[in-house]
């Protein structure tokens, strides 16, 4: 059982070479981060419009 797991793990490692891994991380990682942050910026822009700042909030 242990040997099988070790073997399986080795096989998974062997399937993805460093080049594929690196390129995937750069593309999906950078793309995912910027898309998520872009989505958050849109959402927060909408929230700002939905709940506008009121002068009375000053000093609270």
């Amino acid at each position, binding site marked *: 059982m242990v040997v099988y797991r070790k073997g399986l793990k080795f096989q*998974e490692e062997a399937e*993805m070479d*460093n*080049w594929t*891994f*690196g*390129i*995937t*991380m*750069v593309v*999906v*990682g*950078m793309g*995912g*981060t*910027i898309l*998520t*942050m*872009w*989505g*958050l*910026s*849109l*959402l*927060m*822009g909408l*929230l*700002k419009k939905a*709940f*506008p*700042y*009121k002068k009375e*909030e*000053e000093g*609270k």
Partner: protein
Amino acid sequence: MFEAIVNGLYGLIAGFVSLHWSNPVMVGLGCLLLYLGIKKGIEPLLLVPIGFGCILVNIPLAGLMEEDGFLRTIYDAGIATELFPLFIFIGIGAMTDFGPLLENPRIFLLGAAGQFGIFLTLALALALGFSKLDAVAIGVIGACDGPTAIYVSSKYAPHLLSAVSVAAYSYMSLVPIIQPPIMKFLTTEEERKINMGAVKKTVSKTTKILFPLVVTVIGGLIAPKGLPLLGTIMLGNLMRESGVVSRLTKASENEIANIVTLLLGISIGATMDGRNFLTPQTLMVLCLGFVAICLDTVCGVMFGKLLKVLSGGKVNPLIGAAGISAYPMAARVAQREGQKYNPKNFLLMHAMGANTGGQVGSVMAAAVMLSVLKGMGVI
């Protein structure tokens, strides 16, 4: 009786006899960290406990990092379980005002661009022959965020923890020295003079309260593996903005953060055993960490230039360099550089927006990275 006396005397010199050549070197390094913290005021809250932990662990035969040693107990309780960085994050969330970021949500993008160094350095580390998870831990130095770097490296590359955390905190404190030449090289004098005007107060309390909830839910759904990081920083911020749990907020930003910083620092120092630390690998980690911070700055400034074009020249690209997590140093650097070329230029609040965006961005980038790794079956 004579033999007993000799054995007894040997017990007193056994520490000297057992010294490895690397131990005195590391004691010297520990003293250097103490000097930087005490004399130069560089991140003293961290460098003092790290430096002292480094000295402690390099005194042979004390067994402080062996099973039941007190440093091992602290390490196992807070680093191995990843609790210390998460507690620190609650404090950071409680201390951070995301108002300047929410005034201009576009600046979120600068916080994302400032994290590109993580992924580019990861690729570079792979090219230099590091394993996948080692490369991940090295890349995360580019988050410029100590707790995130510790969280990721302690989980996936614990043997690199000391090098990664020392690099992360050292380069964070060196941001005022590392960034200005890059900012100057990548921008024209006209760009550095751009005046962005004053930041208006336009964010309601409701929006500020909803912000941590939205980031937690959306970020958690996109990158669930990073939810501990996101959730803790946002919990701290929700407590701050809600204004109804001031005791918890104060405890998070003072007592809890202080106690955990002490234990975190001494635990990191305790991983700096000379036999493991003084290797070519550590030197490479330190070099790659430096590259990561430089790449963050380059990507941030270049993205700032892009925003300048898209906004019709209203954005000063210097604030792009503040899109990293080193808060508030990076924002102060942008302000200082801007004022050098236009004394009437007050970029600080805009740069603070980018800087807090960098805090969210660094956590988000780490969360995305962990989820992509999980998706690929690497972790």
